[in-house]
């Protein structure tokens, strides 16, 4: 571990410790439809993060009193495996994962066409298998693809990534050491149209730095969106065209 008073440089020869430029994402890998039992699923790697998302539904709501008469409800469970972090994490939900679950659900709800399925539930389960800063954003990216894989009608995909501040500089997609020892972290999620559906911030930033951080994170989200889109197109482009057209028409009506 690095001593507190020892100044660590996050940049070497103008690049970050893992060789990235300050506006560069970590390598991303997305696989769609990885689980047989789930209605939709997605495995995602973002740098050293490994997350897997499953979507079940629309299905009957249990317990029944949670039913909404006019729309489907969305549930999101973010869970970290006890082996996913350096020091073993006690299994089960804690306060952090409860909060992450809430904001992640709220990041996806704006695009899910819940009015199509009154009295039902769309369950999203995200398991973090390996964590290296940015698990909530990886989880949202994977969940968004899994929703599409499950055929849940949506206005659009959601893409998510963070910007941070290290050594006074705004950087995209901070990795663990940058997140732990950096000065700020701003995770966002957005629609391809630029509407922001997740925004959190901790650390310390001026107004101007915040603007640059949000701009940078948005640019990151756009890159992630292209990857998400490509994965889905590759997976489903062999489908009968009329089925695709029907789905597009259905989505178009609502918007």
């Amino acid at each position, binding site marked *: 571990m690095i001593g507190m008073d020892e100044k660590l440089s996050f940049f070497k020869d103008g690049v970050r410790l893992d060789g990235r430029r300050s506006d560069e994402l970590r390598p991303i890998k997305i696989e769609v439809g990885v689980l047989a039992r789930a209605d939709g699923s997605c495995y995602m790697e973002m740098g050293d993060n490994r997350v897997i998302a499953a979507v079940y539904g629309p299905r009957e709501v249990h317990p029944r009193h949670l039913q909404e*008469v*006019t729309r489907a409800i*969305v549930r999101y469970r973010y869970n970290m495996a006890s082996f996913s972090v350096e*020091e073993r994490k006690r299994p089960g939900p804690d*306060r*952090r994962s*409860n*909060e992450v*679950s*809430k*904001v992640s*659900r*709220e990041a996806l*709800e*704006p695009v899910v066409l819940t009015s199509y399925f009154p009295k039902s539930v769309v369950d999203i389960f995200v398991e973090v298998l390996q964590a290296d800063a940015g698990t909530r954003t990886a989880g949202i990216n994977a969940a968004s693809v899994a929703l599409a894989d499950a055929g849940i009608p949506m206005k659009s995909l959601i893409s998510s990534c963070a910007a941070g501040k290290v050594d006074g500089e705004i950087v995209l997609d901070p990795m663990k050491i940058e997140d732990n020892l950096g000065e700020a972290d*701003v995770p966002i999620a*957005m*629609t391809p149209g*630029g*509407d*922001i*559906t*997740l*925004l*959190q*911030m*901790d*650390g*310390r*930033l*001026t*107004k101007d730095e*915040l*603007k640059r951080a*949000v*701009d940078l994170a*948005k640019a990151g989200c756009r890159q992630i969106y292209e990857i998400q889109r490509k994965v889905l197109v590759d997976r489903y482009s062999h489908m009968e065209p009329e089925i695709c057209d029907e789905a597009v028409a259905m989505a178009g009506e609502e918007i």
Partner: protein
Amino acid sequence: MSDVVMAEIRKDYLYHLVLKGERADGRRFDEYRDIVLETGLIRKADGSALVKLGKTQVMVGVKIQPGEPFSDTPNKGVIITNAELVPLASPSFEPGPPNEVGIELARVVDRGVRESGAIDLEALCITTGEKVWIIFIDVHILDDCGNLMDASSLGAIAALMTAKVPAAQYGLGEDYPLPVKDVPVATTAVEFGDAIIFDPDTDEESVADTKLTVITTADGSICGMQKSGPGSISQDAIHRIVDIACERAKEIREKFLEV
């Protein structure tokens, strides 16, 4: 079903008011309800504050006790923030362990105190690796008439600023005031239509899909943010909210926290 119908009627009403540049209680869009802050009401707590934000009432108590540090920060004190949405405060609160709304509230209050550096955690070390001061910040919601986030954050920093470290009780020298180095203030806004409305009451909260809380420090920088609620927000709105949030926070800080 009647809830749904009422919600639609209320939404229409508030929406039309906003188009005319008005709010149901006559406030300007960026105007806070009256704030009343009283500290030191709870003798048994080491610091306490009652915040009234309009009709919203929040009591915050701070207890300070010696305890063991975390193994990865042996020379630092510990802050533990908790929020109770007790059923006396609202017909929609239920007894039981904190739900996600309570957890989010506590974590955003905690974020403001922690990230602003208001508490010098190293100054709370008694014996490295063995004994440090643990600060418990307990937020007790008494009456939920909207904007619990700002009321709770204000209560937390006010309680901390008036808290005494009870050293004598534990044979660790004389009691002394808890050193507080910064004054984080949270300001919350909602967006509906094209309007940005600060300090929303419960009706305004229920109409808007989404809230944004911005926590600023004494030097005008931002130390915490949280978007809350199942809606989206534009980047333009975010920056407009941040600009006004800095001004309102400065006023609250000067008026109520005397800095």
